[in-house]
């Protein structure tokens, strides 16, 4: 019995460790946030060792100290020194992890790139829509009462000239390779969360607040944008497309989409 359990626990430990070390595959990275992947690997190594050692020990104890006729349990009330040493070791490990993690967090949240390309993402049940400010570098004012489903989906205020050259791209976000992007996120109704697995980017979009997000795309291609915060029955199909294109292609795309016709 004890042998069976010990072997079960050992096999489980080895299998799980192997699975995590060889099976943890993120979607292909396409942004400047490679540090998140590195931090994950570091954490995986530390927790992996802890997991493997503790389970090997657990199995060993069960086997070694199984009840026998002759065996007598040790009378032992504990070892404060051991506990303090152990706690200190843990604190050192946790401080290391916390320091490296905070470093990354800082980089992500305190970066204020110069002259980023500003794009607005608008979330609503159940779609993402994107808006570029056009040649005047200004987003037009929004007036929710002016929303018309086909003609004016975001509710651009027709009296605000800043909005005349705004470019709406529906649910397609096009960004140039390597350029700093600043994304303004806002929600029309409930909470959504802007999630691009390949970019390692996720930001809740809280109604009533304007959220900000910076990133650089580092790989040309098409990626999927999902919603990561439960927003209703269509949550699972709230999606959009991210297109990373070369700077030249982006310039062409921007020119083609700029409104020439100003009524």
């Amino acid at each position, binding site marked *: 019995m004890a042998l069976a359990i010990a072997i079960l626990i050992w096999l489980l430990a080895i299998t799980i460790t192997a699975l995590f070390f060889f099976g943890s595959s993120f979607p292909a990275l396409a942004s400047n946030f490679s540090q998140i992947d590195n931090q994950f690997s570091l954490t995986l190594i530390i927790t992996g060792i802890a997991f493997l050692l503790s389970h090997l020990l657990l199995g060993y104890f069960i086997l070694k*100290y199984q009840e026998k006729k002759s065996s007598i349990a040790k009378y032992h009330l504990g070892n404060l020194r051991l506990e303090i040493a152990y706690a200190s070791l843990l604190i050192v490990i946790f401080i290391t992890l916390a320091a490296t993690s905070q470093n990354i967090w800082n980089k992500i949240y305190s970066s204020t790139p110069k002259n980023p390309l500003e794009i607005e993402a608008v979330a609503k049940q159940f779609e993402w829509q994107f808006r570029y400010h056009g040649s005047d570098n200004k987003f037009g004012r929004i007036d929710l009462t002016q929303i018309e489903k086909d003609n004016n989906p975001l509710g651009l205020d027709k009296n605000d000239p800043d909005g005349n050259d705004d470019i709406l791209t529906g649910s397609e976000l096009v960004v140039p390779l390597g350029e700093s992007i600043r994304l303004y996120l806002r929600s029309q109704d409930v909470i959504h969360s802007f999630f691009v697995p390949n970019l390692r980017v996720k930001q809740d979009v809280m109604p009533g607040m304007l959220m900000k997000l910076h990133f650089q795309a580092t790989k040309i291609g098409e990626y999927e944008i999902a919603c990561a915060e439960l927003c209703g029955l269509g949550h699972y199909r709230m999606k959009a497309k991210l297109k990373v294109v070369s700077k030249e292609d982006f310039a062409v795309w921007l020119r083609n989409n700029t409104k020439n016709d100003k009524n």
Partner: protein
Amino acid sequence: MRKYLFSQDHKIIGLQYYLLALLAVFVSITFSVIMRLRLTWPSDVWFIMSKLLPTAFNQTGQMTPEFYLSLMTMHGTIMVFFVLTLAPQAAFGNYFLPLQIGAKEMAYPKLGLISFWLTFLSFCVLLSAFFVTGGAPLTGWTAYPPLSSIVSSQPGQARGMDLWLVSLSIFSLATILNSINFLITVITKRTTGMSLMRLPLTCWGWLATAMVSLLAFPVLLAAGLLLLFDRTLGTAFFLPSGLLIDGKVISLTDGLPLLWQHLFWFFGHPEVYIAILPAMGFVSHFLATFSRKPVFGYRSMVFATLAIALLGFLVWGHHMFIAGISPYLSMTFSLLTLTIAVPSAIKTLNWFGTIWGGKIQLTTPMLYSLGFISLFITGGLGGIFLGQSSLDIYLHDTYFVVGHFHLIMGSSAIFAIFAATAFWFPQIVGRQMNEDLGKVHFFITFLGVYAIFLPMHFLGIAGNPRRYAEISEFLYLNELQPLHKFITIAMLVTVNVQLLFLINLITSIFAGKKVKENPWKATTLEWTSSSPPSKDNATTIVYRGAYDFSLPGANKDYFMQTEDLPNNSLDNS
């Protein structure tokens, strides 16, 4: 009627709570089975089910995503409140706390009666949400506004959501009353000689949980009422202005949806410890008993319990790292979150210390306890990833989180409940549960929960968001479908194996092996009363600590707390 239904006897109340939790877990697991079927085979027609529940299926016979989300909401709510809060604390606590501290009864027997029936009422109100127009709410157990505060935001957000809030308010009230009862009982009703440092660790678990509940549940009660006001009285505590919902612009004063998240998680995170602290107490207790050794580091176990209870109130922000709170705040919460891993890890060390050099008896309660250690470690290590705000950016709201909390808060707590059931069954019934059946159940369930919840971590790493009714809409998720299938099959097997436990539980009441008193040779006071215990508890005097196993030079390997042997009297304290 008065003897069983409206009894003020803490033992009857404890059993009532246990039965309610058992009913709740059955309902809730059924929900999760239906959810997994929908998730794994979204386009299949479930012929019988669609006849039974016509409103939950569309014309083509497919289960609607809103019904999936309703089931998910109810699964979470029932598991967290009516299983994990009730079974370890209210059920076992009510039954065994007075017995273990040598009290004749709880401090306020009537309060116990009232809190059980309030809890029962709240369960009925919760389930009634399925039968009103629009059905049960679909916001998940976290009920984030504005989704939860606007009636027209989604189906199920009308009366169903109101009933959900009313139910949780009643539940909070009942839990507050119960916690007061627990606290006063431990403080005032301990028998002569039962100093705090002689309390079994189970009692420390119940005591700490009562303290946590007393501070956490009022916040849920208040938040729930505020949300109910938002929905019914036109207030706007959680509603920002300028929303466009269902084609209509809603302009109210500037409420804060984030405020709900703060209030909810200020309750919600301690709630995790409400589920796990008594479980930790059980396991410490059983490990000592079946290793025939005193608990390793009794004193530090007590301090770790209290430290977890305290720190549990300081980490709620880790549920909101990317919800729009200040990045500095996220930093603080991330550090505090890693801090709480220290007392938890000390407990783990002490569990290893307890079985080290012991004389391990592999009874079923011991197996469940060892399983608890394994699940607790695995689930806990997942927390090291999620506690780091930088990693949480990616892992937040993915299946990594689902796998993590099901392992640590769900499975390990449930394993402690299995252990407690098998351990105290002889005391309650006078018969033992079947050991062979118990062992088979342990092995399959242990492997089963790993097979279900471990792969979920990989789903999370691959970027699979949680709370999706199906994953077919996204190309990058398509390749994960086989893994989802594997999880569902593992789940169906594991769920069915739970019938073994149920059969064992029921048949052992009538046909279990009769046992003599104190069959496990345990040391604590509950075993001094007869099995099953008579209506009036025996009162005794306590002479020693709770874990006097294998005293050197003694002629037997355990001394009950009531045994007065001055020469051998070594106190744990």
